[in-house]
């Protein structure tokens, strides 16, 4: 069903006409891959809670696991807009694969690329560009998510080592990761200015993983606690300067939320694909339900929500690529896209009726996958605060 839909869409030049040719080609290649290799297995990956190792390797070979990383370090050397397009297209096929790609690109490679030394880049970036290894990002703790400044994980210097202790929570990719960026307090008295960032290989003595969370959605990606007990790493494993951790985290999340916006767009689009196709085929009251205004209004609202969020996402990405401030726009994009994903997937089930509630159709999976996008990498509430703060600054007397 969806295959024919995507093919038909590829016959319409309108969707791709606005993007530069390079980006169109890249988007098409990701779309083809998602359609042929991800969409057919997404339901099974979800049922089995299974990490798509083979696909991640193939995506690595295509350059998608390290889109922004320069070629000299093994990446594709493309821009952030290209990365957002890639994540959206892949998420349209499988939302879990989308977040695996996003976390590796934005949350793991991102901060190392920006704040790492040349040595650190070679050691911690290059092996993670091929799809053979993925990384993760450990900021949240059982005691604080949104309140990132209250990190209680400690880092104490003992001779030529840092000793980390504490627990990190909700870490995406951790059961499948080979390294993590961890945030810990080096100076509790300095509060958020006392947080530093560290690079820890996985597995490593003193680092253990909690149970894999049994999640509502994105089940093919692993989520668990990371427990640090007397975890010793060389001094050279600090990322950036001492006390820079909070700053690094916030800057990383600014970009990361565009990756999540892209993922949310992919999920929303898949839900719309499913609904529009069903509207053509399902008949009631003597005609396809697509003829009924009730369904038409839903499809229009769904498409509008997606397209608006998509343009916000592209714009934020383009601002970032132009090295202009993009914090407000990124927050708007993530907020709009995640709310679009939950709205569209909710309506998709409504359009499908009973069929939307069973696993025979992908609508229920899109509904379950969509929900997390309003929570991770900055809740919708935090996004609103970020936007409001920026607005108020703009209007400062």
């Amino acid at each position, binding site marked *: 069903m969806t295959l024919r839909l995507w093919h038909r869409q*590829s*016959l*319409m*030049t309108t969707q791709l006409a606005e993007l530069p*040719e*390079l980006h169109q*080609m*890249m988007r*098409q*290649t990701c779309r*083809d*891959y998602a359609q042929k290799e991800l969409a057919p297995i997404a339901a099974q990956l979800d049922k089995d809670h299974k990490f798509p190792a083979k696909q991640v390797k*193939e995506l690595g*070979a*295509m*350059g*998608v696991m390290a*889109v922004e990383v320069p*070629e000299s370090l093994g990446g*594709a*050397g*493309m821009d952030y807009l*290209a990365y957002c397009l*890639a994540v959206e297209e892949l998420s349209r096929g499988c939302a879990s694969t989308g977040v695996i790609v996003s976390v590796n690109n934005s949350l793991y490679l991102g901060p190392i690329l920006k704040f790492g030394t040349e040595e650190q880049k070679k050691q911690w970036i290059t092996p993670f560009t091929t799809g053979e290894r993925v990384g993760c990002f450990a900021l949240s703790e059982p005691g604080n998510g949104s309140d990132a400044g209250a990190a209680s994980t400690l880092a104490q210097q003992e001779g030529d080592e840092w000793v980390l202790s504490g627990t990190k929570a909700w870490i995406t990719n951790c059961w499948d990761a080979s390294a993590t960026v961890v945030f810990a307090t080096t100076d509790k008295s300095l509060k958020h200015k006392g947080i530093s960032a560290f690079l820890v290989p996985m597995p490593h003595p003193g680092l253990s993983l909690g149970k894999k969370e049994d999640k509502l959605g994105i089940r093919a990606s692993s989520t668990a606690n990371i427990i640090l007990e007397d975890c010793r790493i060389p001094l050279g494993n600090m990322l950036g300067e001492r006390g820079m951790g909070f700053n690094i985290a916030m800057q990383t999340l600014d970009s990361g939320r565009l990756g999540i916006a892209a993922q949310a767009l992919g999920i929303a689009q898949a839900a719309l694909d499913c609904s529009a196709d069903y509207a053509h085929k399902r008949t009631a009251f003597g005609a396809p339900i697509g003829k009924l205004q009730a369904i038409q209004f839903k499809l229009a609202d769904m498409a509008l929500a997606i397209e608006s969020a998509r343009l916000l996402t592209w714009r934020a990405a383009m601002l970032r690529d132009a090295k202009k401030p993009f914090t407000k726009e990124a927050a708007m994009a993530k907020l709009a896209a995640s709310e679009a994903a939950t709205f569209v997937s909710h309506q998709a089930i409504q359009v499908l009726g009973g069929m939307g509630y069973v696993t025979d159709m992908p609508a229920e999976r899109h509904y379950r996958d969509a929900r997390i996008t309003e929570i991770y990498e900055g809740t919708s509430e935090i996004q609103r605060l970020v936007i409001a703060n920026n607005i108020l600054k703009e209007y400062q007397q």
Partner: protein
Amino acid sequence: MHLFSMFLKFQHHLYCLCLPQIRVKPDHTGVVTDGVKHSMNPFCEIAVEEAVKLKEKKLVKEVVAVSCGPQQVQETIRTALAMGADRGIHVEVSGKDYETLGPLQVSKILAALAKKEQADLIILGKQVADFRDSGTFASEVNIEADKLKVVREVDGGLETIKIKLPAVVTADLRLNTPRYATLPNIMKAKKKKIANVKPADLGVDVSSRLEVLKVDEPPQRQAGVKVETVNDLVGKLKEAGTI
């Protein structure tokens, strides 16, 4: 009709010819070309893949992608470049000429181009049956010395032949699995050259020899009839006069 070809160069080039998905125009005067994304058809993708593989095996020196058609075909040439072709040639045919472009004119264009570029090997998607040569429906292609060893899928099974170069080969489904263009290759494709050529430059007259009277879609598939027993089936077949 949108036609796409590939030239491969050992010392020479290899061709691949493709046809896109087509839909009949409502007024039955031809097929729809507006708004149809000129994407490579699967047989062309396979031909491109084979060409690039031969180059990776160092049996081929240069791969040239050729396409005949309007401006939009450049997209498909770029896709071939992103898959690994070295350069492209766009034979510009647009408007009325494009609508009436038939196999005869295309063969002349490709033949003229092949001579000009000194193509050694031409790989086409198997949809094009107008080229007379023996390497059709290839499911395996190997180069041995200065000959081409081709395994062909024929009605009776598989046939292995050796052909002298220059030669034409058409790609069948089982020849290979086309690669996805990688992001670095898509970036590199941007810098590769696509030359612009007009049919007149090749001394080919593309004016139509044929007048299309009518184009129809194939008849809609009729619903079948279900029967309960074998005797019923025999009865129905007798009724239809088929036995």
